[in-house]
């Protein structure tokens, strides 16, 4: 089971934190700080795995990957495989990249809820449910499409015959994609 997903920048600022078991805000901050202090002391060209038992308690492993200014961190227990989780991070970043074209740190901050949506499509209740970035994209797009739907529905209801209005509605849909 995956216990936590974190994204933080190289200065230790948290950019995304999701814990699959409830932890108090203080505990979360403590863990994030603990993880960062280990991460920033790691040299280049070493393995992406860290023994996380001293931070997260028994039976916990940590895999991280460093992209530009960000660390992507997954914490999990022995029912997952380190290399596979490393690949999962890759999928996550690829998906973000597809979503934002050349994803950067700011994209993640500004699209906070969308990142969560993407992550929820990949990892559900601590288990990996989807590993194909195009499938994840499809699901996320489906959700974003609904953004205007209540509004559109009311438009359509009010002006069923008004051709211009439905064209406008279609236009709205298109720009929202």
């Amino acid at each position, binding site marked *: 089971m995956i216990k936590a997903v974190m994204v933080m920048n190289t200065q230790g600022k948290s950019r995304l934190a999701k814990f699959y078991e409830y932890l108090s805000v203080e505990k979360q901050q403590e863990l994030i700080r603990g993880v960062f202090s280990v991460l920033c002391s790691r040299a280049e060209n070493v393995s992406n*795995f860290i023994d996380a*038992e001293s931070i997260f308690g028994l039976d916990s492993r940590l895999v991280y990957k460093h992209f530009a200014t960000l660390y992507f961190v997954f914490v999990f227990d022995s029912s997952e495989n*380190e290399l596979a989780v490393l690949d999962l991070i890759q999928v996550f970043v690829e998906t973000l990249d597809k979503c934002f074209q050349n994803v950067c740190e700011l994209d993640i901050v500004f699209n906070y809820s969308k990142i969560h949506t993407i992550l929820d499509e990949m990892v*559900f209740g601590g288990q990996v449910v989807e590993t194909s970035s195009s499938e994840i994209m499809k699901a996320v797009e489906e*959700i974003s499409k609904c953004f205007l739907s209540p509004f559109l529905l009311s438009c359509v209801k009010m002006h069923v015959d008004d051709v211009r209005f439905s064209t406008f509605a279609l236009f709205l849909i298109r720009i929202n*994609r």
Partner: protein
Amino acid sequence: MGSQGGFYQSKEFLDLVKSIGEARSKAEEDRIVLNEIETLKRRISEPDIPKRKMKEYIIRLVYIEMLGHDASFGYIHAVKMTHDDSLLVKRTGYLAVTLFLNEDHDLIILIVNTIQKDLKSDNYLVVCAALNAVCKLINEETIPAVLPQVMELLAHPKEAVRKKAIMALHRFYQKSPSSVSHLVSNFRKRLCDNDPGVMGATLCPLFELIARDVNSYKDLVISFVSILKQVAERRLSKAYDCHQMPAPFIQIKLLKILALLGSGDKQASENMYTVVGDIFRKCDSSSNIGNAVLYECICCVSSIYPNPKLLESAADVISRFLKSDSHNLKYMGIDALGRLIKISPEIAEQHQLAVIDCLEDPDDTLKRKTFELLYKMTKSTNVEVIVDRMIDYMISISDNHYKTEIASRCVELAEQFAPSNQWFIQTMNRVFEHAGDLVNIKVAHSLMRLIAEGFGEDDDNADSKLRSSAVESYLRILGEPKLPSVFLQVICWVLGEYGTADGMFSASDITGKLCDVAEAYSNDETVKAYATTALMKIYAFEIAARRKVDMLPECQSLMEELLASHSTDLQQRAYELQAVIGLDAHAVDCIMPSDASCEDIEVDRDLSFLNDYIQEAIEKGAQPYIPESERSGMLNISNFRNQDHHEASSHGLRFEAYELPKPAVQSRIPQALIASTEIVPVPEPMYPRESYQTTMPSIPSDAGSAELKLRLEGVQKKWGRPTYTPATSTSNSTSQKTVNGTSQGDGASTVSSMRETYDSRKPQVEVSHEKQKLAASLFGGSSKTEKRPATGHKAAKASSHMVEKSHVPKSSMEVASDKAASAQQPPDLLDLGEPTATSTALQLDPFKQLEGLLDTTEVASAVNGAPAASISPDIMALYVDTAAGIHNKNDADLLSGLSNPSVTNMPGTTAMPQVTQSSSKRPNPKDSLEKDALVRQMGVNPSSQNPNLFKDLLG
């Protein structure tokens, strides 16, 4: 904006993020965030906020909380948002509540209703959002509220919903297995779902279920194998691929499941060989995910019933991992090596240089993993090098958690494999010096015990040498500043007990040092207490030896200081010291005999000396004793009172509340009690009753003898030296024997095959001399291995020592039923006292037992001692073949073992059935250790082994 879809954020939010990003200090950041909190507090409570604005506020709250600030004022608004009709607003609400709230939060009650409604929604996206919240927010109490809806969703037309419903159900199972235990069959059903994604999702809960109870899922082996086969053959659509691997997470889960199901089960394992072999062949080893699957294959192969071909492929993959430049792959390689090494120990030989490279790698993670591997492969031959390295590493790190772990490992290895007492003491000194405060206090106690009892060597000479060397080293170490408290306690105790024993140091030397300790660590009361008692011992020994005692002035002042100490313990010790000094030689010798720390202080718990008195009383018409189990509730306390009366030594004050008096069962209450209850209507246990007190000290009850047995085991279970283990067969516990059983054969093979490959390894690639030396000391069975006869002898000696030990309590137990006594002390055990006879008996007899279990052909090859290793898996298989039958067989075996006393005593005879149990669990590093220990103790000499036999048996 197009790319942001519905997740648009306002300029304000962007500004906030920017200003936080530009903040120079934590204080500045905090100021900005606090400002923001103020703004949000104000705005969020304004009436009629447009939904879109509200949604953004909530996101801002989430953001603030992620930065570590309290956003609880907004929780209620997030809850409100979940009620909204618009999907996106609702989703934001759900996102916020899943991040904000825990399952026991007060606001959950407001959400459960919404979740219930949303789970029934027509829009599957709403359902998904609700399921997401279910996973995080539903606790044991609220599970029933949503369970029916979740169950319905298992048949939802959308596969995404089915998948998430299964995960939600899995989550329920994790939170409260009992509340969904009747529904676990749904996971099986969903395994046949049309959609591979849903099927993949069911593997997660199934994995957990199987890990808890393997046997009820054995029937699924065929299905799992066929699913894995289809996945590996790319029968799934491309949509499930991940970096060109077909559904890797499904493959990994399946391999994990198969590893569980095939563990120790030959029949099940045979079904898996083909598919695992196929994956080994086809798997793409250039990508991370491909290697992840390969690694999982190795884990699977090392867990299921061994197959030589697969082991070979696994070994190939491991060598590829280890040779790779990637640290990740090396890490996986080391881990895999640790798993495989138990099955084919010779594989470590090929990779020794790679392992040593990893040990010297700057990457901490890799280093630790390598130490773990070394820990698993420690034997008596390489223990010195490994423990040395471990301690060096332990000194170099600052992470307390890992330091503790590695310290306890060092201690464990040192206790099990110590080549000499000298080395053991030195190693323990180093561990204590550098991690003293981190090691368990028990370790200190066992070190003291070791020094007191010695290694069970023939002559006391060696023991006293050990003691003087310990004393010497401690006196030296005391010069160093800042020693850990635990270590000081050991030092004080040893100095007190043996400081003057060999006459090298005078009493004033030792007492001076002890006073220094008490002074230097005056804040540590435990150390002071140890030091005071040590002083008392030294003086007592002096007085007993009829030497003149001159108390050093600093001792005098220390004693006076302690006489007025605030700690009653210290005070008492000081007074005792004062009293002892005033006594004459004879009295002192009685209360403080020299070197008597290991003598058992006899406590006659059965009070057998009162038997005559009881007999007399009963003859005069007193009521006989009623065992505790037959008395009704209130007697609990009167029992306590009785103990108070007769066994003043064995209890303290009770601090827990008295039990509520249970309704008395009239029929069982003896005459006397009925009489008294007539007088006092409510049974009042507080009043002592004559009748009870007279009946109490009667013939020992069953409970009493059980207690005694327990104590017996406590005495027998010597820490450390595994050579003691044979003696555990005196007690009826089979668990100890199990260990011996497993290791009995395997250990032999470990050593023998090591030797075999050691020779073949000679033409080696040129490497630095130092590394080669290290490799040789780690992996090679050098000539010093052949201490075996000596150790075997030692073992026997030790066990004879044990037998004597176990006699001691027996005397106090004579009244206990003869049956129990004879079961515990079979005549054979005494034979263990003769070393030579024992070692041969130990070698042969397990195989007598094997004859009953194995085909004659196999037995023929087994007679030779060492090759038994290769057969032991077969034995396991015999037991596992019919999983249900295990227990019956187990019982039968125990019985047959008991009927033949010469067999009973042999470790590893009656224990076979449990072999399967232990091997079905995850690989246990202890096994390998114990294996080697056993080889030593059995005195099995590996040179007598014929390598060809292995091939025949395994091939």
